[in-house]
């Protein structure tokens, strides 16, 4: 096996050998490697196939910008992860990784045929091709496209890993631990700012940490040595927290940032167990210093995507940091000075290399150093083509014309096994723009730079366009002193020697004799878009960068165009003949690099996914086979499956028992609001449609609450407990919103009212006993209470004790039966319930759930707000005009009840429906029509509630129907998929119209 690890470095621990599997084959690397560096050390460049043309692709970079080396990690159904960048994944013992987007394997891939038919699949191919015949879309095109779409495979089982969230507050957050970030963090922390420094890498230092060129020195030390000292120093600072392996994902308003900390992704599997995998930091910082650095640009020329073609600086990092050379015969293709550092580093390690430089000439110290080492430099030359299928083996260069627009002279063919490209540097302005900051364009070196700030933040270092070390340190120090309003002198005498110059010859699309249509000049490696695609989009009339981006999919892959967006902009500007700065950029959206769902969700999975509210009787319900229904966050018994009954049978049994003898319902979830104050009566007058002033103490009243637009909002019974004390009940789902709404009116519209509201929903548990035998059960429970109709009539309230515990008993009914609701402090709820069950045994007291409750109330035509209403129903629409006071001057929603729209007679109104076949149960939500012959069919309304009533032995339904009030006795049709059901409009009350049962 070839070994490209050619020297020792302090970042690779050669005593710790690590074995890993890539595409099923076992390889070795060392602790400190990334997957990418270990693969390169084994001579592997080919790591995947491109998305569209299935061209062989190799590792391009050494960081977050990597477009090609994305892989599938692991093979377990619950732990596998797609689209992991091999350049960021730290190697660990037992790592299993595989290449993506190729079949049967990366070396021989069937999809590679797309490369040869590529003239047939230009930009917008999908939009243009799959238009016709129309019938092909569903059966042929869509399945085919789906088959070829997507990168990698998602896990198919729940994620077993643990994730965590953490909230922190800092005075200063520094993003990026390169040279400027370290300086900034030191200055802040030393001046009493509580500071957090985050960096996505394993160790601090950015690109300077492996910078060892003799011609770049700080205080007479090599720049990496100087920086190591600085790092040692900041580690001693007590009010500085340093978080490595932590990357900022999003920068939101008010300096609120999200960071992902990797805790176990670099550990072998047995050490990952039971540990938190990733932690999402939610950071609030008073001030933010952005020092995110810059990334190197590729160059755009024909066949610039072959394996073995990397960014020049990445070759340097693999060499000086990981000790790995990317080839043995390397060519560096550049338009600026930075490739010369790579060249000199390679030369020092004995790696043969030559330089192709777009510039006509250059004469910085760095170039002189390269020349003196005898490195061959082709100035004013351009790479026009590359060769080699699975890896580059040679390339052609030509001389550039005077204006740089074309090539002249003869082709020179050079052999090589690796090509490094350097198109200059792109400042990482993502964080600045995510925070709302604007950008400026600098024409000299064609970069976008941070401009206005909308947050309290600043950019320093190369993300601010300062590329040479001297500039970086000087400007960072000055800017931080100003930004933090401090006068730090630590770096006043720092002496920096930097021989690099910023001179650059920028050509976005490099000239070529071959017509563009026959070239493959890649811009976006991951989404396979080329210079040709961009030009085609412009030719077809696209102008906005946002449109070109979407049409060609440039910059829309998982790397979000970190390497491609600038080139796309440049080529658009050049082609359209406009200045690049005037084009603007596409939007930089969070996250900076992909996040796992696990990180975002944190601990809120499984039973912690949402808050669950249980009544104090919950355990009893569980023990008695209750099936539960979610009502808001509450778990309510839906029905009790006795002896393995299904829902229908259980509901029929429960409903019958409740009317024949006695039933009991857990009504604890109903919203309860305690209302006190001298103006409580007046307040109720204003919020309910009916009158409250005359409600006697100890009496209950049903109320309907509207929105200001006149639509029914909530309902419930309110009890007057004493002169200035009421207890309001609301619907279970509406409790919180009703309280908010009432508070809103009290605080903002009627602050003069002396009223206090307190939610007591959780403080009381409620058992509701109904049925003809309910009075007998109550008698057993409260032997001293006079239950006679004279003393305790319907709609009244008594207090009594149950074994010394206070109970509030309301005689109110939602079933139409004689009915009592017993309220007790919640901690006694379960005991109350059990005592009721015990007392009711001889009367077949049957526990019933929400489904039976719904059925019983429907038999009586009582509405459920939210089921029979939907925010468009007025009291009159519900045939409840009786509850709207004519006398009251005002209440919430009153004025809206006679708006032109609310007095329309053809509004949808609540009616009852009876099926011609009494056994036929209608479907809730089904449409209602009168004439099925005329097309389109006129829809009159829909069914809101539907049940089979065991007490009436027939099907009953409530519905809202246009002009329904006037349609009693009329025949209507419910058209279903297989049949039409005939119904007759009826009254909404199906049972006991005279309310005899209330006093049975």
């Amino acid at each position, binding site marked *: 096996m070839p070994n490209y690890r050619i020297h020792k470095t302090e970042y690779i621990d050669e005593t710790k050998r690590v074995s890993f599997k890539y595409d099923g084959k076992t390889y070795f690397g060392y602790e400190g490697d990334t997957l990418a560096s270990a693969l390169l050390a084994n001579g592997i460049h080919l790591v995947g196939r491109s998305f569209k043309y299935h061209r062989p692709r190799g590792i391009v970079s050494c960081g977050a910008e990597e477009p090609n080396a994305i892989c599938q990690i692991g093979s377990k159904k619950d732990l596998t992860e797609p689209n992991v960048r091999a350049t960021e994944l730290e190697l660990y013992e037992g790592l299993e990784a595989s290449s993506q987007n190729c079949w049967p394997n990366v070396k021989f891939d069937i999809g590679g045929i797309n490369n040869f038919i590529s003239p047939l699949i230009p930009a917008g191919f999908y939009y243009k091709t799959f238009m016709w015949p129309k019938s092909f879309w569903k059966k042929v095109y869509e399945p085919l496209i789906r088959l070829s779409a997507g990168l990698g495979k998602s896990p198919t089982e729940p994620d077993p890993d643990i994730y965590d969230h953490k909230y922190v507050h800092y005075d200063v957050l520094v993003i990026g631990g390169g040279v400027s970030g370290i300086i900034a963090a030191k200055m802040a922390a030393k001046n009493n700012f509580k500071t957090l420094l985050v960096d996505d890498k394993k160790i601090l230092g950015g690109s300077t940490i492996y910078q060892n060129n003799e011609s770049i020195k700080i205080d007479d030390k090599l720049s990496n040595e100087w920086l190591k000292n600085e790092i040692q120093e900041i580690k001693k600072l007590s009010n500085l927290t340093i978080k490595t392996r932590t990357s900022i994902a999003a920068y939101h308003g*008010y300096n609120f940032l999200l960071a992902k900390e990797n805790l176990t992704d670099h550990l072998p599997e047995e050490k990952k167990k039971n540990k938190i995998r990733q932690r999402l930091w939610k950071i609030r910082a008073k001030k933010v210093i952005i020092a995110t650095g810059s990334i190197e640009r590729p160059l755009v020329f024909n066949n610039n995507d072959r394996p073995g073609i990397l960014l020049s600086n990445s070759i340097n990092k693999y060499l000086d940091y990981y000790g790995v050379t990317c080839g043995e015969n390397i060519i560096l293709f550049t338009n600026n000075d930075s490739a010369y550092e790579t060249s000199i580093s390679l030369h020092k390690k004995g790696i043969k290399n030559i330089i192709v430089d777009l510039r006509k000439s250059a004469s910085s110290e760095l170039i002189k150093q390269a020349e003196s080492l005898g490195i061959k430099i082709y100035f004013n030359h351009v790479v026009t083509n590359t060769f080699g299928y699975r890896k580059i083996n040679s390339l052609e260069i030509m001389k550039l014309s005077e204006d740089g627009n074309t090539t002249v002279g003869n082709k020179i063919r050079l052999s090589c096994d690796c090509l490094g490209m350097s198109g200059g540097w792109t400042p990482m302005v993502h964080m600045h723009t995510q925070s709302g900051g604007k950008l400026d364009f600098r024409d000299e070196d064609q970069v976008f730079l941070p401009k206005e700030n*909308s947050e309290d933040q600043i950019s320093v270092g190369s993300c601010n366009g300062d590329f040479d070390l001297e500039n970086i340190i000087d400007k960072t120090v000055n800017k931080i002193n100003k930004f933090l309003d401090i006068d730090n002198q630590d770096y006043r005498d720092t002496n920096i020697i930097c021989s690099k110059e910023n001179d650059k010859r920028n050509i976005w699309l490099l000239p070529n004799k071959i017509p563009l249509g026959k070239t493959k000049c890649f811009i976006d490696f991951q989404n396979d878009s080329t210079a040709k695609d961009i030009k085609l989009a412009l030719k077809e009339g696209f102008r906005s960068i946002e449109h070109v981006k979407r049409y060609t999919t440039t910059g829309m892959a998982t790397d979000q165009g970190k390497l491609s967006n600038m080139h796309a902009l440049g080529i658009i500007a050049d082609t359209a003949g406009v200045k690049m700065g005037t084009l603007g950029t596409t939007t930089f959206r969070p996250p900076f690099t992909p996040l796992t769902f696990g990180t975002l969700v944190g601990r809120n999975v499984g039973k912690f996914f949402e808050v669950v509210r249980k009544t104090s009787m919950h355990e009893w319900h569980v023990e008695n086979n209750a099936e539960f229904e979610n009502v808001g966050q509450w778990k309510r018994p839906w029905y009790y499956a006795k002896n393995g009954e299904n829902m229908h049978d259980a509901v029929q049994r429960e409903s019958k028992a409740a009317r024949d003898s006695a039933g009991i319902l857990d009504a604890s979830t109903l919203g309860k609001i305690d209302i006190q104050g001298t103006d409580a009566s007046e307040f109720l007058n204003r919020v309910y449609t009916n009158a409250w002033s005359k409600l006697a103490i100890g009496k209950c009243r049903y109320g309907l609450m509207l929105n200001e637009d006149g639509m029914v909002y909530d309902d419930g019974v309110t009890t007057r407990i004493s002169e200035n004390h009421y207890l309001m009940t609301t619907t279970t789902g509406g409790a919180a919103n009703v309280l908010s709404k009432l508070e809103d009116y009290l*605080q*903002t519209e009627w602050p003069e009212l002396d009223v206090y509201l307190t939610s007591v929903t959780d403080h009381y548990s409620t058992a509701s006993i109904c049925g003809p035998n309910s009075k007998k059960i109550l008698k057993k429970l409260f032997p001293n209470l006079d239950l006679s109709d004279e003393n305790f009539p319907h709609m009244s309230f008594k207090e009594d004790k149950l074994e010394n515990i206070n109970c509030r008993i309301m005689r109110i009914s939602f079933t139409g039966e004689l009915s009592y609701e017993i309220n007790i402090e919640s901690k006694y709820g379960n005991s109350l319930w059990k005592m009721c069950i015990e007392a009711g045994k001889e009367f077949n007291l049957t526990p019933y759930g929400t489904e039976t409750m719904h059925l019983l109330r429907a038999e009586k035509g009582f509405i459920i707000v939210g089921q029979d209403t939907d925010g468009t129903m007025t009291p009159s629409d519900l045939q409840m005009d009786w509850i709207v006071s004519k006398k009251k001057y*005002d209440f919430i929603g009153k004025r*809206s009840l006679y708006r032109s729209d609310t007095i329309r007679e053809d509004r949808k109104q609540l009616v009852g429906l009876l099926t011609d076949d009494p056994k036929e149960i209608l479907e809730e939500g089904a449409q209602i029509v009168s004439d099925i012959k005329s097309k389109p069919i006129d829809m009159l309304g829909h069914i809101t509630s539907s049940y089979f009533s065991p007490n009436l032995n027939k099907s009953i339904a409530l519905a809202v129907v246009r002009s329904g009030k006037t349609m009693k006795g009329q025949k209507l049709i419910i058209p279903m998929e297989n049949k039409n059901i005939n119904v007759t409009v009826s009254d909404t009350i199906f049972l006991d119209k005279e309310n005899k049962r209330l006093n049975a």
Partner: protein
Amino acid sequence: MFLINCPFCGERDQSEFSSGGEAHIVRPKQPTELSDDEWAEYLFMRKNIKGIQFERWNHVHGCRKWFNVVRDTSNDKILSVYKMGEKPPVNYK
């Protein structure tokens, strides 16, 4: 995410608050005297400003108090916070 300075509790995360729309829309004292159009003006018509906006917020997961906020919708900066019933600051128009 905003950091809102509740006039009763101090600076808190936006997630503790709920927004209540445009401020200083007074419920008419005599709704019955209003025409449909006048009532509709109160009920439905709201401004959608790019720039300085007066709005209501409720510290719903805190002290449950309503208060007013002056916010520049173009950059989400909260310029002023004041209690219900207090006059809006005059320097923002």
